[in-house]
């Protein structure tokens, strides 16, 4: 039995602490917003935040998240109105949508560390997130837009 703090709630889950966090979130906490794309840290589809930092949950064992704060796409904002989510809708970013949870988690972590990223900052921060449908140019635009939205809120 392990205790995980996910999206502000502490959950007791009966699982092997060596299990990758991704499967604990999806199969045990029943939060399927985080996606499987490669299982090897190569695509970013499984990105969540641990203590605010973006990590690949497919290669992070549950044991590494014990006692820490986990945020998934489901907990990024109360009403889906995080500036990144708003900007994503504004720019109609998603195509199939499968990679987008991971993209949004990477983008929101980027903006938390760097409120006004340049194109290059964005490319570097987002290079680990694959999108087979090809939404990269819109992601770039939406991140700039989100940066503006976040500034207005402050």
């Amino acid at each position, binding site marked *: 039995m392990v205790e995980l703090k996910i999206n502000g709630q502490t959950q007791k889950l009966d699982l092997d602490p060596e299990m990758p966090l991704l499967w604990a979130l999806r199969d045990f906490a029943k939060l399927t917003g985080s*996606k*499987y794309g490669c299982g090897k840290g190569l695509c970013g589809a499984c990105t969540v935040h641990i203590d605010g930092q973006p990590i690949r949950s497919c290669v992070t064992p549950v044991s590494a998240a014990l006692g820490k704060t986990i945020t998934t796409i489901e907990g990024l904002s109360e009403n889906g109105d995080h500036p990144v989510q708003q900007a994503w809708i504004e720019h*109609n970013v998603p195509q199939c949508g499968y990679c987008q949870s991971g993209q949004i988690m990477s983008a929101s972590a980027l903006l938390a560390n760097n409120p006004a990223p340049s194109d290059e900052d964005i490319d570097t921060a987002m*290079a680990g997130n694959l999108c087979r449908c090809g939404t990269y140019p819109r992601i770039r635009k939406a991140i700039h837009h989100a940066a503006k939205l976040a500034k207005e809120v402050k």
Partner: protein
Amino acid sequence: MKDTQSPELIQPLEIENVSRRRFLSNAGIASGSFVLGVQLSPAIASVENQTDEVKTSDNFSPDVFVSIEPDGQVKIICHRSEMGQGVRSTLPLLVADEMDADWSRVTVEQAIGDQKYGSQNTDGSRSVRKNYLKLKQAGAIAKTMLTQAAAIAWKVKPTSVEIKQHKALLKGSNQALDFGQLVKVAATLQVPARDQLQLKNENEQVYIGKEDIKLLDGELITQGQTTFGFDVDFEGLKVAVIARPPVVFGKVKSFDASETMKVPGVIKVVELPALTPPAAFKMLGGIAVIAEHTYAAIKGREKLKIEWEHGTNQNHQTQAHEQVFREALKKPSTVVRKRGDYSSAEKSASKTFEADYYVPGLAHATMEPPAATARIKDEKVEVWACTQTPQSAQANVMRTLNFPQEKIGNIEVNVTLLGGGFGRKSKPDYVAEAAYLADESKMPIKVLWTREDELQHGYYHSPSYQKLAATFDQNKKVTGWHHSMVNHPIGSTFNPAAKTAGSADLGQGDMMFDIPNILVDLGDTETFYRIGWVRSVTNINNAFAAGSFADELAHEAGKDPKDFLLELIGKDQAVDFSKDDYKYGNYGEDINQYPASTARLKNVINLVAEKSGWGKKLPEGRAMGIAAHRSFLSYVATVVEVSVNKGRIKIEAIHSAVDVGKVLNPDRVRSQMEGAAIFAASLALYGEITAENGQIQQSNFHDYPLARMTDIPEIQTHIVKSSELPTGIGEPGVPPFAPALCNAIFAATGKRYRRLPLKQFGIV
């Protein structure tokens, strides 16, 4: 990919008021709603799915429901699969616009797989083309009936009523009735005859053709709340992963699962039947590990000890087979198109120019690998799957379970969202696996494919070898064109004896240059693994070769590549392929209705040249390349601009001009063009599937890389304004990209790359 249906646009349409029908209760429609059933299809949609469940109880088979509930909520059923192309936003939008519904008060329901919907095969870039007029008519009928209902309520003539934004308005007054208030009366009315219908013209449209239509599922996606095939879950559901034979048609010789069974959470292992030819959509065989959760299933699979018998394909080597391809093209087996006499053009030529091109095998690499869930209870099979084709999934389950044909209606295939499709998910082998395992284990089963599974056990785009040759006269005019191609045919997946590409219709035979002597032919070869269609199919390799070769000829002739393309295409005309003894399929459409128009092809070339600033002076080390291609009845021209820095190529700009006829949802046309360019960038830069000893070598994104954000600049899409019939947008953006890129690299460096991917040359 294959079109089994005749053109539907001109077929009669049946629409009925089915508000009172019994079957609605199962369709999740509130009682008291106004419901229109629309017959989208000829009665028998495809040979493999001949059943008539609905018709036996009712004389009319309602394919698409348009319903309005008493609170005014409009429900529209989407019968095609959403995989990122925006079909759930675009098809229902047609209905909503025509009936003047408020898009924010429309709900879209995903149809299950059922023959009554006509073809649901979401493939071949044809969802809009096949359904455009019918959905407009459905909307118009709803609107006419709402008008009548309001007229009855106000005791006026229908001409005194106007419908706007979900309301009926009484002209000359400020009285208004919401759609919800008209439901009761509308439900009792006769459906108007179609000749009374007035379809909207472009100026009257509210949503169609307009910018900023918000994605239907956009909000849910950004909150991680949508359900993909991987996400299906319910009480009692078990997860399975499968160790499949490394070589197609190989089988399990023996296995030991004792270590597997020790993994906590593993429930059991099941051996799947070995695959025998043809592969079709059958299971590949192997050993399945069924577990309580994904981690246990994956761990359990790692612990399996399996001895394989690799079978007939175990000596196949991709590298060595290239020589076989080359030999095959020395003696092409099949002439596809012949105009004039190429060999005499060769004899009288002042110069002949030749080049060979090679495009490797490619995988779909959908971001979501295949996944399917099946539950069997009391002779009913329920399936949930990310499938492009729920009807063939249904038929495949029927065959796998030896289900009687007349009970196919007991197999219900629910379509989830698809995390990408690209043709992979129109092959329901994974659905068969789920059904088989659910049946064997007597448990509901979700089969998940890992990335390794997806890359190693796919239906690949075949590697291909191509020889192109052209003749010039003294004036540097091209007098002859010869294009030979050989690949492992898709047909071999369904008929092991197939050795020749089934068709040259995808970018080889249907090239649109006006050259007096043309010869297009195909070579023969054997196949050693499953071949399938991948986004834009053989247009990928054919356009790469032809688009690169045209550029080579331009340089040979000392002409500007864009001007030279226009010159090769020649005068305005609808190309008459039949004159060249060539039976051209034209993507299943009548060539008179959708001609191969040289004017439209030249127009996209001119447009992209203008918008990209073709010919302008570029900084040192930068250059542009151009290519144009007609596929899926659409016309695309692409200009790629590259820079070279210390021998490395960077893509600096991508411009495409596209003519898809009438544009329904410009934002989704643009997003498909962006996606197509990036899909093509992946294959041009990185994509390569190879086999050694019959086993696919690539296993994950480290050795099958995809384009990343750092590879991709801004992408500009320039849409031609047109009132021609709408065509397709899912695939046509892919083919011209790779040749435009390589043409740009040539312009920048003087080096011609005739093989893909470019990563093998150390320049990306």
